[in-house]
């Protein structure tokens, strides 16, 4: 499978581990990631909060490039980029006049023909292959799937999963050999774009998410969004401050979880770049299997 790859700004910077793990798992899963040449930023929150036309035109430029470069599907592993690309695509498909207007602004041919997929959707569809390739099932480690906002909303844009009770990431975690955790806050908002500008809100919202995952028995959280990741990882220390003890919940990209399941090298998956240490979690899930009666023992350990 060949996909047009739209890394977005974060995957080249704060979310490098996302890109590293994604590239690492691509080969074993028969996915070819071809970066869209000369892509530009999707505009993120700042564009749609200030100028609607800009918030459509910036993603449209990238979609037009992908179209010209011969891709029929674009993967946007960052949930925020995915939401902007998919929203623009959705709106342009609905509104022919807008499509013409945007094509004129872009000064390039554009038919809005390219599909946009999220990381959760892609990996869910690859779940059978993940299950088949999984070299080192995660020993049943309890992982909470965190969708946040942008993977499942707006519902008319996303639509690959249920907006309130989604299950695609759980399917991926299970395929990689982990045990998905049932918890309450998987579609809550972490504060997203306020990470820098209104840190207090992010701390409040993120803390509630982490506490609930912890209460549900999660040993790690899997995310599909670099913004969620940086909020929950980088600011976890601050979120723990009012609590009796640090939360200590590693925040992994979904691609990293899959990579661990496929038995790939943790360093290659970027697991050394996290603020909340992933060491003990990685050590646990990569522990050499006990000689006999392995499944039962592992289960006991987890329980």
């Amino acid at each position: 499978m060949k996909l047009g790859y739209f890394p977005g700004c974060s995957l080249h910077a704060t979310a490098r581990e996302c890109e590293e793990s994604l590239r690492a798992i691509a080969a074993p899963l028969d996915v070819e990631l071809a970066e869209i040449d000369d892509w530009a930023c999707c505009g993120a929150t700042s564009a749609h909060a200030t100028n609607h036309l800009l918030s459509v035109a910036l993603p449209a430029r990238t979609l037009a490039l992908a179209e010209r470069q011969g891709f029929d599907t674009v993967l946007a592993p960052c949930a925020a980029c995915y939401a902007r690309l998919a929203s623009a695509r959705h709106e342009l498909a609905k509104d022919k006049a807008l499509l013409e207007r945007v094509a004129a602004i872009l000064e390039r041919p554009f038919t809005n023909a390219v599909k946009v997929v999220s990381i959760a959707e892609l990996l869910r569809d690859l779940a059978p292959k993940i299950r088949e390739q999984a070299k080192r099932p995660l020993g049943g480690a309890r992982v909470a799937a965190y969708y946040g906002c942008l993977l499942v909303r707006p519902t008319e844009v996303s639509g690959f999963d249920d907006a309130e009770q989604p299950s695609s990431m759980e399917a991926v975690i299970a395929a990689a050999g982990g045990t998905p955790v049932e918890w309450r806050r998987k579609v809550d908002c972490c504060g997203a774009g306020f990470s820098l500008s209104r840190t207090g809100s992010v701390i409040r919202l993120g803390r509630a998410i982490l506490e609930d995952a912890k209460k549900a028995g999660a040993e790690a959280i899997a995310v599909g969004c670099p913004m969620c990741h940086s909020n929950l990882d980088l600011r976890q220390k601050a979120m723990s401050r009012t609590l009796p003890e640090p939360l200590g919940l590693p925040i992994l990209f979904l691609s990293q979880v899959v990579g661990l399941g496929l038995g790939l090298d943790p360093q290659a998956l970027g697991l050394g770049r996290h603020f909340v240490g992933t060491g003990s979690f990685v050590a646990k899930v990569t522990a050499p299997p006990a000689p006999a009666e392995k499944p039962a023992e592992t289960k006991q350990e987890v329980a």
Partner: protein
Amino acid sequence: MSRIGVFVCHCGENLGRTVDAAEVARASGTLPGVAHAIDYKYMCSDPGQALIKQAVAEKKLDGVVVAACSPHMHEKTFRRATAGAGVNPFLCEMANIREHCSWIHENRPAATAKAIDITRSIVEKLKRNAPLEPIRIPVERRALVIGGGIAGIQAALDIADGGREVVLVEKGPSIGGHMSQLSETFPTLDCSQCILTPRMVEVYQHPRIKLLAYSEVEAVEGYIGNFTVKIRRKARGLDETKCNGCGQCQASCPQKKIPSEFDAGLGKRSAIYVPFPQAVPNIPVIDARHCARWKGIVKGLKKLACGKCLEVCGRGAITFDLEDKFVTEKVGAVVVATGFQLYEIGRDHEADGLKGYGEYGYGKIPDVIDGLQFERLASASGPTAGKLQRPSDGKEPRTIVFLQCVGSRDPAKGIEYCSKICCMYVAKHTMLYRHKVHDGRAVVFYMDVRAGGKGYEEFVRRAIEEDGAEYIRGRVSRLERDGDVVRVQGFDTLSGEPVTIDADLVVLATAMRSQPGIETLAQKLSVSYDRHGFINEAHPKLRPVETNTAGIFVAGACQAPRDIPDSVAMASAAASKVLGLFSNAELEREPIVARVDEATCAGCFHCLRVCAYGAVERKEIRDKKGNLIKVVASVNRGVCQGCGTCQATCPGKSVELEGFTDPQIYAAINAF
């Protein structure tokens, strides 16, 4: 027809503003064949009608055109006046120059010109009208009532008490409907079963009511006064005439873990069962899906399992006869009273365009129940004998949160209408709960309280003021299971603050929906229904219990969400309509029906295929010696409803619809 009178109405000031009525009369007077044309202030008034009668007599008129309001308003009035003047009423037509002209145009010359056009067109049509005689058809003075809930029971009893026979068909094993499941009823808090069961017994014992429970309407043929109804009597697996309702079979059945429909899934029943102790008829049915022996018989096994019930039945009533039987009944009128079902918040009904509530857990949280389940929990005859115990662990809930408008008034989930009864029953639930658990908390999330009805507003106020129900105005965003509580995340729009409540039990006032399969039944009956499957009444104000098919009436919640008093009132109204219909051995109807010209009919029977009523029949034409010459179409004037589709379909122009014949329509077009 050469002596037509044209009568132009001013309708007080209504017409005069934009249409010059005198000018319309003047212009009409010049039309060939018009012998008389006048205008008058109110043609529909007594003096106005007297003018028509006088003109007919004096000017020897043989046709009347009244240029005034819509024929839907006063066609009957003026046809009666025309008949009173000694002219066939179908030689009177109306030109609609009010609704279709003066009320919608501003430009006086243009509107006047249009009014003249309209009148001329009608005059030309009228010249081709033929005198018609009303059709008289015999009436089978028995009624069919479909549905044995409170509406059906009431309709059946009223008709039977009025002296006419009734066939009452109920789909389930017992009559009683949803009302039999209720604990208490608003706004009096009297016990539902205490007032209902005597009525159920009355039905059973009534000499003029034939009760066919566990039965469904299979096919309907015929027309007002003359319906033939085929009814499927579903196999109970036992002989009703031998069973005395002792209940031993039920007690002996080893299969006891089947969720009880009557207890809304909260209680259990056996595979051979009577749905509830007061059931009418008090005769069990065998549940084909769960009875091991029945399944064995269906599979054709040699060695059959169980048979405990067979052993204990002292009367040999249990036969395991699995064949459905069919009976045919002839009736003159039908009352549809099939009731409702409740909206479910899961995803099972996506095919119906209903989305379910993911934010409320799609029905997977055990301590989130619906209003009917709460009724069963609160009912003395319920699975907990009236002790309030929540489903998950049997604990008595200390805090109950009630959510109104779940599924109702929620276009995003597929239903935009108000279910009407929920405001009242939620208030009732809070009272029942607070009467049982004095220190418990009853919180209601509502959007508006709609308590229009006698004693209704007072009832809701009592729940709030005397019984301490806490009403919070706002919809709930999310329900989550958190340990052993259900977390309710809401907002109080009146104080402007978020509200989070940890509830032991959450009760959803889910929407009332039409019954599943109602579309199929409606099609059998040729009655129309709205996009939610509620049966359409003939007129929302003036003909609320009639349908658009003559002789078929509607009562209760199958027409729209209804409470008990409304359903009963509708049922009595429908019954009185039925009795009115039955007050004569024959009935008269408008002769707007199709007629076949047998001389030109080629016998292609396209007309027969397009007729929605089965009114077209094959008729053999024979010579004097009895040799078959040809087969032609023939219209049963009693069955024909007068849509005219046959006429437009006929390739040989051999069908004419009386009152709307081709010559009449072409004359109207030619006058354009």
